[in-house]
């Protein structure tokens, strides 16, 4: 019975993509699918263009892709019905990106300390984010990524 109710509630959540723009920000809710990374990227590109931040676009877009990909894989565990919330905002010459998933979180302190192996086929997501953002943190639970970088 409970399973039936849950299934009923989550029905249709595998095709969510809602984007809204604020004067200095962008908010997106998306189902956990790889196709939605491309859609979020397109919106991010448009937002950065509107803000005159083309020079920073590659760094921000690639970090966004890594953050959402990690959220899909590790937070949502591949469940398309789980929603990810992504926001980007410009605040006092700083760009702040937040990506929150519905997962149970992870031990991000240990993961951030581990360095990538450059001859390994995987495990570069956090390293890429750290290469472009001065500040890479999570909330205590470990299900919300917060990236900050100064914009000159």
């Amino acid at each position, binding site marked *: 019975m409970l399973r039936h109710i849950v299934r009923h509630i989550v029905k249709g959540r595998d095709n969510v993509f809602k984007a809204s723009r604020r004067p200095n920000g962008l908010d997106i809710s998306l189902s956990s699918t790889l196709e939605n990374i491309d859609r979020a990227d397109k919106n991010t590109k448009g937002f950065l263009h509107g803000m005159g931040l083309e020079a920073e676009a590659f760094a921000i877009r*690639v970090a966004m892709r890594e953050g959402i990909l990690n959220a899909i894989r590790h937070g949502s565990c591949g469940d398309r019905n789980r929603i990810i919330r992504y926001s980007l905002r410009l605040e006092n010459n700083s760009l702040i990106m937040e990506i929150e998933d519905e997962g149970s979180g992870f031990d991000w302190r240990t993961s951030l300390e581990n360095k990538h192996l450059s001859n390994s086929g995987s495990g570069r997501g956090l390293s890429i984010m750290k290469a472009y953002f001065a500040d890479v943190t999570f909330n205590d639970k470990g299900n919300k990524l917060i990236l900050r970088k100064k914009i000159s």
Partner: protein
Amino acid sequence: MPWLHVELGQAIIIIIVRKGDRLMEKAKKEAEQRVFRPGEDIVAPTVDGLRKKLLNLMEGGGKELVVDLTGVQMIDSVGIGLLVATHNSLHKTGGRLVVTNASKDICDLFKAMRLDQHFELRMSE
């Protein structure tokens, strides 16, 4: 002056032989080299399709794989993983991977990930 004819003949033969050598060298190099042109971003949603194309290309043999990134604007950790795995399997058999026509952004990313220490990286001009 018959000696002139002999020397001229020898010179022509030498030119022909050298040209033949160069053509053979070029053909040999082409046989050992494969070129992969993804033509689209190498990111999580596209990597599975690109991996299949890459495997088909590598089935034909060849020691050197050139990945031509013309038109590629974005690469993520999954795309980098594909290139590194390809490099590793080529390296095991004495082959090598060369990345050409990478944009400045992609070159900078590869350098930040120290990938330029593993395979040859050439920027687009």
